[in-house]
């Protein structure tokens, strides 16, 4: 069984907390500190963003993070170095990458996966690679051979037939996109969120984690009553943006925010 799936079945938590942040914002070495802080304060799984110049599924906060990151010269060596450092700090917490497909394709799928695995990555989320493409099938096979997961996104617009088809090539968990649009903090969620998640749990035998738009402890608490996990990106990235130039301030603000969310979903 995949490491991620067994973590969910271990009973360590009722609902997982899955924070996200972009590597390299404002620089690669600070990312290591941010990663460690997030792990120390209660991440169950950590999503690391590999910056891509054209993040079409992301809202303004993450777009700005990516732009700041890319002001540093982008290099896969740096990405893997930082990932390894974060992984070594707390090897028992699963790390997954979130990125767009173009950088992976360009690096070469096998080469990318080998290096990602060596650095401690056990899964991938790729918002612009639908499951019904040849590339996704190849990727799924290559991941499986390395005991890694392909985490697919399901949205409020995904139809039943598609969800059933998608369950064949997804593993780890399902990333349920709580609302229409792109990443970013939101005040409200679609009214049928709970029903959709229940339906997904019945259809796909994988943990269903909800993301896109969640930012407050209250929201996290509420959604954790029925989702297997809560994914938060933009709100964390904003903490980094607001304090990012001062590493120690950013670290303490992150610690504060992460522990509050963790406490809210226990």
């Amino acid at each position, binding site marked *: 069984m995949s490491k991620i799936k067994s973590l969910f079945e271990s009973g360590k938590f009722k609902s997982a907390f899955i924070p996200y942040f972009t590597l390299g914002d404002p620089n690669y070495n600070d990312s290591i500190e941010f990663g460690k802080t997030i792990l120390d304060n209660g991440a169950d799984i950590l999503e690391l963003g590999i910056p891509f110049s054209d993040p079409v599924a992301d809202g303004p906060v993450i777009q700005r993070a990516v732009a700041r990151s890319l002001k540093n010269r982008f290099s896969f060596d740096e990405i893997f170095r930082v990932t390894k450092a974060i992984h070594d700090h707390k090897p028992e917490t699963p790390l997954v990458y979130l990125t767009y497909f173009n950088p992976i394709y360009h690096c070469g799928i096998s080469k990318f996966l080998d290096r990602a695995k060596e650095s401690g990555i056990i899964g991938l989320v790729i*918002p612009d690679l639908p499951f019904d493409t040849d590339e996704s099938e190849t990727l799924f096979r290559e991941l499986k051979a390395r005991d890694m997961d392909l985490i697919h*996104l399901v949205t409020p617009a995904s139809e039943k037939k598609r969800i059933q088809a998608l369950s064949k090539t997804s593993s780890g968990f399902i990333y349920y996109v709580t609302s*229409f649009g792109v990443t970013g903090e939101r005040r409200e969620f679609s009214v049928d969120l709970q029903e959709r998640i229940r339906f997904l749990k019945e259809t796909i035998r994988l943990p269903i984690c909800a993301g896109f738009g969640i930012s407050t402890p209250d929201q996290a608490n509420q959604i954790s009553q029925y989702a297997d996990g809560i994914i938060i990106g933009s709100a964390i990235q904003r903490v980094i943006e607001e304090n990012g130039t001062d590493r120690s301030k950013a670290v303490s603000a992150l610690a504060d925010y992460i522990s509050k969310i963790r406490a809210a979903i226990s």
Partner: protein
Amino acid sequence: MGKNLPGYFGEFGGRYSPEILTEALEELESTYQKLKKSKKFKKELEYYLRNYVGRPSPLTYAERLTKQWGGARIWLKREDLNHTGAHKINNAIGQALIAKFMGKKRIIAETGAGQHGLATATVGAMFGMETVVYMGAVDVERQNLNAKKIEMLGAKILPVTAGEATLKEATSEAMRDWALNVSTTHYIVGSAIGPHPFPTIVRDFQAVIGTEARSQFKKQNKKLPSAIVACVGGGSNSIGMFHAFLKDKQVAIYGAEAGGLGPKPGEHSATLTYGKTGFLHGTKTLIIQDESGQIVPAHSVSAGLDYPGVGPEHAHLSKIGRVDYRMVTDEQALDSFLEVTRVEGIIPALETAHAFHVAREVAKDLGKKKDLIICLSGRGDKDVTEVLRLLGEKNK
């Protein structure tokens, strides 16, 4: 969707967009399949093309250019004479009709030179649809006349300041808007780019250019031309011009892409020359990118060619060698702009000026008694201020 299914041109194309858009793309695909066969839809489209756009556009024999260049006879397919001054309206009308049929009340678009934004704002006004146009902040400046027209037509312009603040960023922003408003909104993609079915839909609506040109030429000359030329940004006017001729093996086909300031990364938009296979804006195609797969900013003097990707069908046509794609620098385009204006009395768009440069090379190579058709994709009124500014700089 495997490679053998529709949506791919050889290895290029497909649908690589966020999951939230999939249902809308499938709805668009099936609606379009239905409408394509519907007599009523065809009649309505033809009605607007004839009575609103002004089709068929003339095929003009360019006597003075022919003499000046001293080679093949030059013919111009006059998309500049369409309402709103470019080929973009052919596609905007077609897609607005699809949107109307699907019951969408709001249309959005991206624009570089402003011609597609203008076309979309125009059909938005005519059909009474709420219209939003995303335009890079840099392009709002350099194509200010079009930006002003778009607003005058009642559409809203949302300037995009991210990145290079040009067409690539405007396209990303329009995709994000669509993801948020997908149930009420149709995204009228302006070139033969984007996730399936957009490259096919845009190609089909623009194919009228080549279909008309081919039959007009044949009727007048009882034969086919030896060569055709069009400029390639995303590639809609060119694929529209090429489509009807692809099977005519005796017709040589040329595409002109923006060589910008030179071959250095960041200084051109020559995707077919320097691009590598990748994934951008929902399609697998050739893209100008660095060794890590980050998209490199494009540059062209013409806002409409300033895009680091290209329609997937062009990537395929380039790979199989059916079309000869050539680079034209900013300076060569500017020279052609002035030459055509003075010699033929037609001010072409800066985008189109790239095609004229390639046409001059090809006309010489072909020699006399051969015929060459250039797709005159749009008129250059929008570029006059920018050209004057560039000439002023040059003469300093």
